């Protein structure tokens, strides 16, 4: 079933066009990977899905992006509500310089999700458990989040993102700043999370896309070159450019 349906999305940074007519169907409770060389527009597309491009003043988005028939690319849309439903994990772990507990509790607090202290404790615990971080931090929830290791910080960011039970989580190269062991932990986590949420992940690592995703989209120079089941993209792509990229002949 389709969760997000993008049609003819064009993005401009000032006069420079960054995305050309991107149309894509993102399926519910699956992992969709977006791959492609640097500057190909995959992150730009990802940031359209939770309207993070609004922050960039010169950025202009055209076209239609629908999530469950709700038009995301509309002036009338309340981005706060949207971002409650669409969480995001960034390339560089960016926990708030606050305690681990406060990091996870921040979303539920501003969205009024927890009614009581007990409920909040419960949300924090569940989120940290889902992010596979609970056992490592349960005795030091009042320590500063930025004091954790890189991999732990990224899992804390994931816990923060899932604390408000979003329907979609966007991940922008979540493992590029991590070592292989931390990367493996995050990938395992992604596999678990997809039972409950739809995940869109941008990655530089083709092996990662192959390992974690069910669908893969290949971007090049702002165009979506090919989109399909991960198996097919990696084993038998239709397009010559895709073939060249995944076999490492360019990019």
């Amino acid at each position, binding site marked *: 079933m389709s969760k997000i349906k993008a049609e003819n999305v064009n993005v401009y940074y000032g006069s420079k066009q960054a995305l050309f007519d991107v149309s894509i169907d993102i399926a519910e409770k699956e992992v969709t990977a977006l791959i492609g060389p640097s500057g190909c527009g995959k992150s730009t597309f990802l940031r359209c899905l939770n309207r993070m491009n609004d922050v960039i003043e010169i950025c202009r988005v055209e076209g239609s992006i629908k999530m469950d028939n709700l038009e995301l690319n509309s002036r009338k849309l309340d981005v706060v509500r949207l971002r409650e439903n669409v969480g995001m994990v960034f390339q*560089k772990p960016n926990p708030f*310089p606050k305690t681990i507990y406060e990091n996870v509790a921040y979303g539920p607090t501003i969205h009024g999700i927890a009614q009581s202290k007990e409920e909040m404790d419960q949300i924090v615990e569940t989120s940290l458990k889902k992010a596979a971080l609970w056992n490592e931090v349960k005795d030091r929830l009042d320590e500063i989040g930025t004091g954790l290791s890189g991999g732990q910080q990224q899992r804390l960011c994931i816990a923060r993102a899932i604390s408000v039970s979003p329907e979609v989580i966007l991940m922008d190269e979540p493992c590029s700043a991590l070592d292989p062991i931390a990367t493996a932990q995050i990938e395992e986590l992604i596999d678990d999370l997809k039972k409950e949420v739809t995940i869109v992940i941008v990655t530089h690592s083709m092996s990662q896309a192959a390992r974690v995703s069910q669908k893969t989209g290949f971007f090049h120079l702002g165009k979506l070159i090919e989109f399909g089941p991960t198996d097919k993209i990696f084993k038998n792509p239709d397009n010559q450019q895709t073939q060249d990229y995944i076999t490492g002949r360019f990019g």
Partner: protein
Amino acid sequence: MNSFKKNLLKKRYNAERRFQWYGKIAIGLALSFLAVFMFQIFSKGYSAFQKTWIVTEVHYDKELLLIDAESPSKDDLENADYYDVAYKAMTSLDPGLPEEEDRQLIQMVSYKYEAEVKDLLLKNPDYLGKIVPIKLTASDDVDQVHKGNYPRDIPEENRRVNDYQLQIYDMLNERGDILLEFNISFFTSPDSREAELAGIASSFMGTVFSILVCLAFSFPVAVLAAIYLEEFAPKNKFTDFIEVNINNLAAVPSIVFGLLGLGILLAVFNLPRSTPLVGGITLSLMTLPTIIIAARASLKAVPPSIREAALAMGASNMQTTMHHTVPLSMPGTLSGTIIGLAQALGETAPLILIGMVAFVNTIPGTPVDPAASLPVQIYIWSESAERGFVEKVSACIMVLLAFLILMNLAAQIVRHKFEKKWS
């Protein structure tokens, strides 16, 4: 290596060595200026922290005090006549002196000696009827002679202390009846026309009130302006124009702000003249751009990743700013504020224009009482002719410098202790 290359290498080394020497000479010059400046102030000023007393004996004679009651109450002591008792305390230093010459003795202590005689009895009512030793504040001339600041060898007609007074002084000094003690009254007394009585209490309190008023007006306005400009305002020609103007404002000579305070605060709003309230508001006009610039710089220094994290969690712009960006920028903003206030602390010109240069011999209790400020006090005293004020000027500069150093230290501590380290 050929000789051309060797020469080139040698030239490069020499150039670097020369450059280092220029730098060292520059630093040496700057340090020696500072050392001369400090030496001047300290060598002239340290003696102001000491005060000369003349010890004599006072007889609290009931008859001379005109007290009739058998066991006088506090009021009786308060209303007694101390003139004769005090007068006798001084003239007893030289009983042989003819009556018409006694002014010479009275002049050796401050004009408040009668009050000092009274205070001692009010504090110790059981001295009534007894002969007790008393410390009287020496006049500034005797004070300066005792501290060695006044030359004794100039001709008598040009000297403020005549030969007879010097003779009495020497006699007292030999007896050990001239005391040099820590000058508490320098810190607790208001200004006075008499150098031996003048203190910095009124100007110190004036400065403290001015700085507090300045902080109360400039900090909220500056921080709000900085947050709006940095986090909310659209980036266009108009906001660029505002930014340029704020930067220009920081470079406007302070006397211009003084005229503004005079023209608007005093003339239009009729606020009370010569008060820390007006002084503080005028100074806040000056510190405003400094704080805005510091606050904007520290808001800018908060990594964008923190803003993105908050926005992606569904925080509104306002929540992102108030929950994350502003708290993280506070150490930088606060240290900028303290530095702005430290600048305001040393300002003289605008305060002179709004009338804080008036002679104030009361200690202000609120920001709407007339007061001077430390830099203005320096200015007032430096214009006074008496020798006793020379050391006071330097001492006042020392107090001001200590205040400044403390504030800059506070700024450093705030910055280093509370600044978050980004991993």
